């Protein structure tokens, strides 16, 4: 099965499930219409969803994804508390600036999740990404150092290992 | 009553902008403001005190609904405005190609 056809199959299944959720299975008409619509959607926009092969098995990746979710939530709580501390501190100890970090991730989806996670974490915001050089530019509320390696470890490093397991 | 007066004020803002601004894009935006104010006014004409939305729902009987017709009219007029705005933008782009400016005081090849 080629990659595009697998992508279409996934889109077909997902579309059908979403259709059932939208229409709340009432009668046969809706289910038949759902199959037709899912086929149509996968024909129009199906080939975009999956673009690369993954090495790990799907079950393992789902476990990793759940692990990543908890890790991300934990990091978010920590960052929230840090930013809250900065906000209520009367001296406002901020030192904003844009820093560059490196990443070892190669897949588009992995990079996207990484950058979006960095954006969602309070205090850091992804500004731009250079996929060829594997560099991410980040606006940081409290720049601790100007060293690229150190920043990579403190901002991106905490997500990177788990993301490798999920997407690579 | 005050909402109608505010709508009318918005209409006047639009007319003022369309007649006095010198930039083509600002004129187009002013025309958009005029159109929206009139649409808002017609939607407000449909308002009825303590009325529900005009949609038939399963297993629910609603006797007091707002007037649904102005909504249909507004949908039509929004589509028309969309078309006219696209037309004006296309004309503005063409004018920019010819005159290299968006300033209406410099676009004066026609006189009299």
């Amino acid at each position, binding site marked *: 099965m080629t990659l595009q056809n697998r992508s279409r199959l996934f*889109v077909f299944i*997902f*579309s059908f499930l*979403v*259709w059932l959720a*939208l*229409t709340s299975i009432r*009668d046969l*008409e*809706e289910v038949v*219409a759902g199959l037709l*619509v*899912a086929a*149509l*959607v*996968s024909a*129009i*926009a*199906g080939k*975009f*969803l999956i*673009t690369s092969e993954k090495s790990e098995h799907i079950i393992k990746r789902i476990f990793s994804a759940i692990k990543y979710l908890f890790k991300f939530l934990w990091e978010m709580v920590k960052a929230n508390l840090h930013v809250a501390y900065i906000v209520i501190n009367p001296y406002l100890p901020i030192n904003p600036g844009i820093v560059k970090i490196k990443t070892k991730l190669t897949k*588009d*989806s992995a*990079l*996207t999740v990484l*950058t*979006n996670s960095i954006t969602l974490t309070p205090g850091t915001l*992804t500004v*731009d*990404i*250079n*996929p*060829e050089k594997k560099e991410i530019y980040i606006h940081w509320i409290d720049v601790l150092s100007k060293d690229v390696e150190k920043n990579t470890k403190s901002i991106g490093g905490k997500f990177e290992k788990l993301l490798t397991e999920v997407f690579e | 009553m005050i909402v109608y007066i505010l709508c009318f004020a918005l209409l006047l803002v639009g007319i003022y902008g369309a007649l006095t601004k010198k930039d083509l894009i600002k004129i187009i935006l002013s025309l958009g403001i005029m159109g929206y104010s009139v649409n808002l006014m017609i939607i407000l004409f449909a308002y009825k005190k303590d009325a529900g939305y005009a*949609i*038939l729902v*399963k297993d629910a009987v609603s006797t007091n609904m707002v007037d649904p017709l102005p909504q249909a009219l507004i*949908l039509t007029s929004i*589509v028309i405005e969309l078309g006219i705005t*696209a037309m004006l*933008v*296309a004309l503005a*782009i063409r004018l*920019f*190609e010819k005159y*290299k400016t968006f300033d209406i005081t410099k676009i004066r090849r026609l006189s009299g």
Partner: protein
Amino acid sequence: MKQTEGMTLIVKTVTRVSVWLIVLYGIYIIMHGHLSPGGGFAGGVIIALALLNVMLAYGGNFVKRWVNIGFLHDIESSSAAIFLAMGILGMAMGGGFLANFISKGQLFHLLSAGTIPILNIIISAKVSMGLFVVVWALSIFHLDKGGK
């Protein structure tokens, strides 16, 4: 930094993952236009936005490879012609232009309301393709050719 066509990788990836969902939602709005708020126009706009989303994220050349713009033009004009044909069919069945000549069916079922779902689909084809083609036509102007 190298200037590539379209937006950054992040936008491209998110578009890639979400475009099918937008198309599906548009079709849902169209198909349930006679049962719930929405209808051909609203759903058509959503489908056009899915196409425009791809166009903005990936750039015009990608879209040109993905869909055939001339074919979209043809869908647009033929859908209007089919709409008129439906109207004339209503006249032929008696009752006047655009008369609802199919059995109305039961309330709150997908297959009901006679010709209205069919007209919704035709209108959605017209609106989605029309809107997309309008923005496409505006986007292929080259403003930088002018300028000082």
